[in-house]
């Protein structure tokens, strides 16, 4: 089963995603994608670690090439956080695949994760509503994340947006 949670910055996406996965699974992997560079990233990682404390999650990291990722064991649930970081890593970091075929690369990676769990909860982001014009690379990033999100929603059993910590379902509300 695949569940996708989206939302803007600080909208309670992670807390909701954790709540959902804990409902289904006891033996969970938190798969982090944020590269721990800089003070801001460290701060975010620390906040998320605190959120997960005592909630029976193993933690592993995967920054690029999710299709080749193999967890140390089989899990009931995997929580992937988050697609927007993963895409940025693939597009802009030295180890990433670059711009070509990156959307498929990430979707293949997500298919790969499904082999290792019964419930996959995926966190992604809403970054599409500021009406700004950015340089080509950023616009391309937005476009690709939009495409990936459309694919994920389409292929998921349930999908919802977190708004002020409240889940607004788009599909599969009974599963959330």
């Amino acid at each position, binding site marked *: 089963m695949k569940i996708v949670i989206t939302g803007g910055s*600080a909208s309670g996406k992670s807390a909701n995603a954790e709540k959902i996965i804990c409902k289904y699974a006891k033996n969970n992997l938190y798969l982090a994608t944020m590269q721990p560079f800089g003070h801001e990233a460290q701060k975010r990682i620390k906040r998320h670690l605190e959120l997960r404390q005592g909630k029976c999650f193993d933690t592993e990291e995967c920054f690029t090439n999710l299709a080749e990722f193999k967890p140390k064991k089989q899990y009931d649930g995997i929580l992937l956080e988050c697609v927007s970081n993963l895409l940025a890593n693939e597009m802009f970091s030295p180890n990433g695949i670059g711009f070509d075929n990156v959307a498929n690369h990430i979707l293949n990676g997500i298919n790969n994760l499904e082999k290792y769990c019964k419930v996959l909860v995926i966190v992604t982001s809403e970054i599409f509503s500021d009406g700004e014009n950015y340089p080509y690379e950023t616009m391309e990033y*937005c476009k690709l994340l939009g495409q990936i999100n459309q694919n994920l929603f389409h292929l998921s059993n349930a999908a919802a947006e977190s*708004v002020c910590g409240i889940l607004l379902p788009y599909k599969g509300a009974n599963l959330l």
Partner: protein
Amino acid sequence: MTVLIVGGAYQGKKELAKKLFHLNDNDFVGMENKAIYNLHEYIKLNNITDVSDFANSLKNKIIICDEIGCGVVPIDKKLNDWREITGRVCCEIASFADIVIRVTAGMPQVIKGRI
């Protein structure tokens, strides 16, 4: 009763609040009144040291705040912090609010409680 009204800019949040809760423009003046307009602007101009304390200080009010977190993450740290704190404050208010409404093009979507 605590009410949180969120949505993008220029979506008719204030007009809706006036209609639903029988408010007039004077009710929105300052931070001590029964209604608060543009909470995100207040957060931008003031240093919020504790999200929970600040949110709790807004209990029993009708609070209007723009949703500002649905864009590309700003490179500027101050702008990024502003988005982050505004989002966290709204999550906190929503957790104890009786009613949360999201407004799009003047249309209310009641996402918590009942009106």
